[in-house]
């Protein structure tokens, strides 16, 4: 019984949304939308990351991390992420519909 319940749930619970499933957001990615809105039409929100080229996001994050790019807060945040984590976040946003 327990097993059939699990299988049944697996079949619908993790339905992918718009390409990349939010359940599989890589480490740290779901915090980004606190400032970089995922919903459209939010006034004064920072640029959305959805659908951005992965190389752009990666480049920017690496530059922030090395203080090569002027920043207010992103330089402090980027320092908390490894190369691999940054790449995963960039890929995940790139897969989403803008």
């Amino acid at each position, binding site marked *: 019984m327990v097993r059939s319940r699990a299988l049944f749930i697996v079949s619908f619970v993790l339905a992918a949304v718009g390409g990349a499933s939010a359940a599989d957001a890589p480490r740290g990615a779901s915090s980004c939308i606190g400032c970089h*809105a995922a919903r459209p039409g939010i006034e*004064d929100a920072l640029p959305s990351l959805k659908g951005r080229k992965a190389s752009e996001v990666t480049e920017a994050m690496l530059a922030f991390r090395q203080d090569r790019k002027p920043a207010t807060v992103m330089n402090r945040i980027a320092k908390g992420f490894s190369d691999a984590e940054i790449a995963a976040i960039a890929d995940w946003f790139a897969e989403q519909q803008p």
Partner: protein
Amino acid sequence: MTVRLTRRSVLAGALASGAMASPVCAPAIAQNAPRVVVIGGGFAGAGFARALKHIANNVNVTLVETHRTFTACPFSNHVIAGLRDLSAQQFTYEKVAADGVTMAFEPAIAVDAGSRTVTLRSGTPLMYDRLVIAPGISFNWSALPGYDEAAAKIMPHAWHAGEQTELLRRQLEAMEDGGTVLMSVPDNPMRCPPGAYERASLIAWYLKAKKPRSKIIVLDAKDQFSMQRLFQNAWKALYPGQIEWVGLSNGGKINSVDPKTRSLAGDFETYKGTVVNVIPPQRAGTIAQVAGVTDRTGWCPVDPITFESKIAPNVHVLGDATLVGTMPKSAFGAFSQAQICAAAIAKLFANATPDRPKLINTCYSVAAPDYGMSVAGVYQPVGNDYLEVEGAGGNSPVDAPQATRALEAKYAHGLFNTLTGETFG
């Protein structure tokens, strides 16, 4: 309907026979979508409910919230300074409901983790497979003799936004020039550690413009506070002589209050104010205490990966009510936690292993409308707790130019719009 009744009677039977939550209940709900009940529709609870519906649309999510309109605390200090209307702080749950979340607008009054039932004030029981408790803070009234609901009508706390915010605003407007504003600030952990100093700044901004002979004294139960150097530099530059800060070692901790004389008694001195803002000591929202998921600290210990309570199984706690390492209690943090917890719960329902998360927090504060500053941190689970990733995070630079301060003030608005937009819009 028949299915539901059957399920209820099975659970009721289990309850009557004294059975605690056990796999015995599981078969009864096998054929149904999992049910998640959320108590509290703030940044944590409403953010969670929407995120879970987004990830796992077929989960039944019921959000229990006392108020039909949510009044946000971030930017409520702007309301106090007359920079903004309270209506700009208010949001409804229409979009949350439109995402398929079932709304129940009444307080939850009891939780039985054994039978997995939440009881609403009307007596309606709600059964859950997983419960999320996200009630924010409550006040520890007994920790501050003299302060209670009645005293708060005279000396507002304005630490829950709404009527209290407007009351403090009106009192400042009514104060004659030359009056003294007193603020008392509790020790950490408290909701929004920099918020009290932002408030002192914005009150000073108002006094400087409208009541220049008035001053504000901040009585603090600690010797160090969030973004201290940034705030104190700003005070010197913007409001010289107008803000006095009294820390713990100088007698800033308030031991009791007297609403009749509007006075605050510290160790060395009793302070009398024209307008008095008392921010009382805090703990997790009352329903968390009722549910038995708080520990000795008054806050809720949680697993750092799933936010499941370390005390009660199948109960998760989010937002201000939790103690998540050194992460400050912020709307941003509450929202971030909600996203992580939604993904984790979806995985748990699917019998998959939740990923190890990383959480970001960013808090903006302003010392004046165009003078912003921030504290950021990246956090990750280490053992049983959350620790800050070393080398990351920290405060805005102390020597930043005015252009940066102005940009951070603008980003503060952007953050408010984004967090409220993602949660309620």
